[in-house]
């Protein structure tokens, strides 16, 4: 009896293992026959996965409905992806399952990963042969972030950048003048120090110190402002351990360990609450954070400079996946319309996101947008300072990890900037030396 039941379980396990094996081979082959794009009636149905909920979803749905009314031959279904943080895993799963969406929302940092999938539609030819997309109208940093090794992987979906968001009341109380567009990092440091009051548990600045990409990209903007770069132009070696990098990281370390003017959040979950409770004078953050500070009268100013004013931007993209010629063509037509100036401004009016295209700022409704979202004009203006982009190499997440450790070790006073950056550079060179598939 007992022996027999073990036999059945064993058999079952064997069968399942065989299923897994064949399924594994199936997905590695990757060639499911392309489903016919158009139905016999001539209507092409396409699906778009996006990460918008609530009022933002309403805005997407309204635009999609408008398109579907005007284009009976291309019917779009917009589906919420359950949260964009896991959009890459879900998209990859859908590709492996053979039924990917036609259009999917992906973070810019994933472009170097998704480009390796044969299902991704590279947009170079479409953009070249179709001037109506007006590719140059997208901000430069968006175009850089959508391009991997010259291959255009996505079309910009959402853009932001970092600027100083400050608490006017705390500045007034401390008698410190508001940040200006001419501020240097020394001015920033002095103001942060003046705003710091240990007795009141009040800090000049706050910094996410969990070692994640959030830790890293704030500093990368500083690195660029000091005249440095993350990698060498050929993306083969680290370049961040330059004098510029040391200058930028030393500034951060001195503020944290000597002035103690930075509230360090190693869990990267508490900064908005603490800022909203009037305990932090300045943040360096983006427009998405503004709704988290209902209690604070905020001012917005571009980031201070070392040698120039820059910022960093994290553009996200719409990526097209290949479900047959007809559906690719239909997806292209739709996404071109969806990301055009007029439609994007309609969306931004509803959600407060920054214009994807420069020409949007010349549309008549743009003034309504500025009125509805006070302060957002600084972020829009700041797009002109977003001239560089993080390297679109598949190893970036590993490089970011190494850099994150370096930055946190300096913030916690465990290492000096030069040593920490040299160590991270060594790791980066090793990471980049490994050939990628």
């Amino acid at each position, binding site marked *: 009896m007992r022996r027999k039941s073990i036999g059945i379980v064993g058999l079952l396990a064997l069968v*399942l293992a065989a299923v897994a094996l064949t399924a594994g081979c199936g997905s590695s082959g990757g060639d499911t026959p392309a489903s016919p794009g158009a139905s016999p009636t001539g209507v092409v149905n396409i699906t778009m996965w996006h990460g918008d909920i609530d009022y933002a979803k309403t805005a997407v749905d309204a635009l999609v409905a408008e398109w579907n009314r005007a284009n009976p031959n291309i019917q779009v279904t917009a589906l919420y992806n359950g949260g964009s943080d896991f959009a890459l*895993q879900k998209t990859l799963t859908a590709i492996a399952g053979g039924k990917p969406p036609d259009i999917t929302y992906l973070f810019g940092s994933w472009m170097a990963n998704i480009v390796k999938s044969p299902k991704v539609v590279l947009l170079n030819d479409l953009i070249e042969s179709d001037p109506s997309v007006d590719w140059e109208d997208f901000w430069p940093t968006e175009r850089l972030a959508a391009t991997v090794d010259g291959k255009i992987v996505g079309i910009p979906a959402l853009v932001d950048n970092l600027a100083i968001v400050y608490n006017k009341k705390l500045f007034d109380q401390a008698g410190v003048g508001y940040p200006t567009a001419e501020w240097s990092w020394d001015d920033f440091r002095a103001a942060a120090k003046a705003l710091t009051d240990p007795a009141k*548990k009040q800090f000049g600045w706050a910094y996410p*110190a*969990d070692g994640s990409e959030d830790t890293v990209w704030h500093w990368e903007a500083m690195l660029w402002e000091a005249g440095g770069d993350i990698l060498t132009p050929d993306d083969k070696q680290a370049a961040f351990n330059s004098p510029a990098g040391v200058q930028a990281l030393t500034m951060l370390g001195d503020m944290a360990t000597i002035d103690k003017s930075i509230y360090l959040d190693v869990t990267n979950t508490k900064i908005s609450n603490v800022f909203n409770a009037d305990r932090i004078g300045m943040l360096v953050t983006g427009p998405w954070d503004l709704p988290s500070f209902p209690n604070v009268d905020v001012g917005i100013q571009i980031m201070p400079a070392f040698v120039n004013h820059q910022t960093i931007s994290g553009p996200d993209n719409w990526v097209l996946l290949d479900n047959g010629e007809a559906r690719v063509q239909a997806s292209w037509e739709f996404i071109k319309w969806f990301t055009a100036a007029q439609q994007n401004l309609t969306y931004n009016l509803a959600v407060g996101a920054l214009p994807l295209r420069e020409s949007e700022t010349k549309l008549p409704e743009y003034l309504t947008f500025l009125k509805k979202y006070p302060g957002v004009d600084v972020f829009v203006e700041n797009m002109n300072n977003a001239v560089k982009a993080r390297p679109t190499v598949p190893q970036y997440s590993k490089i970011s990890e190494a850099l994150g450790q370096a930055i*946190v*070790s300096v913030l*916690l006073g465990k290492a000096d900037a030069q040593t920490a950056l040299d160590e991270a550079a060594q790791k980066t060179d090793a990471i980049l030396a490994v050939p990628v*598939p």
Partner: protein
Amino acid sequence: MLAPGSTARRALGSDHMAGWLFVAPAVVLIGIFGLVPIAWSAIMSFQANDLVSAPSWVGLANYQALTKDPVFMASVRHTLVYTALFVPLSVAGSLLVAWALNRKLRGVRFYRLAVFVPVVTSTVATGIIFMWLLDPVFGLVNYFLSLVGLPEQGFLQDTNQALVCIVLMTVWGWLGFDVIIYLAALQGIPQELMEAAQIDGAGKWSSFRNVVLPFLRPATLFLIVWSTISALQLFDEIYVTTRGGPLGSTTVIVYYLYQQAFQFFNAGYGAAIAYVLFLAILVITILQLKIGAQRVYGKS
């Protein structure tokens, strides 16, 4: 329709078959969501697999790389330290609490409920509570420390303290489960034995040591095995609080596995870590059961 008395009919009608039919839904679900991924990840651990491009066969290269990976070695160390602290603290702690709650006491139901609430509280909520309690600047714990004149601590911000904070947080979070097991075991002790021990002149400590503890051995063995397995697989609490930091001081094996597979897209390498962990848990569990069985049942 099958003829009455046919072999097929008999097979279908047998208890054996009926049993399998009853468990079939569970077997299918566990098979699809348990066994298939287990087999699949075994295959993946021999591949260079980034979940996107076509995987290539690399044999034992992933496992060989593991032996030379200092971060993996550090994660093993952190996991062992964590387990060595978590298991005794949670098992001994829960025994004390269960002992305290196993009596007729006004409001004892409320206390039992209170002890169990953390178990059913979501890890995310627990994480947020502890992150604020342990905040070096705004946290209540440092506030109380300063009230009694003790120096303020860095807690999750301090590379030497972060892992200990995670231990305390998880002990608090999972104590209630262990307490329930011990309470059940304590209530299974025949009252006559306790009375007999008292009549024989055994004091409180002596009857605890000679009557209660031996009766609790099966429960203790179960809890040690169970807690060790959970401790070796620690992930959620790290993910919602320190994310392996500061400076990697709380990077445990499963968190490193997650980083490799889903942050760096080294799914093959991640699968290899998963298998090493699986084998380690298997060996440790077998050892514990072998040694434990001798202690629990060997004397009787």
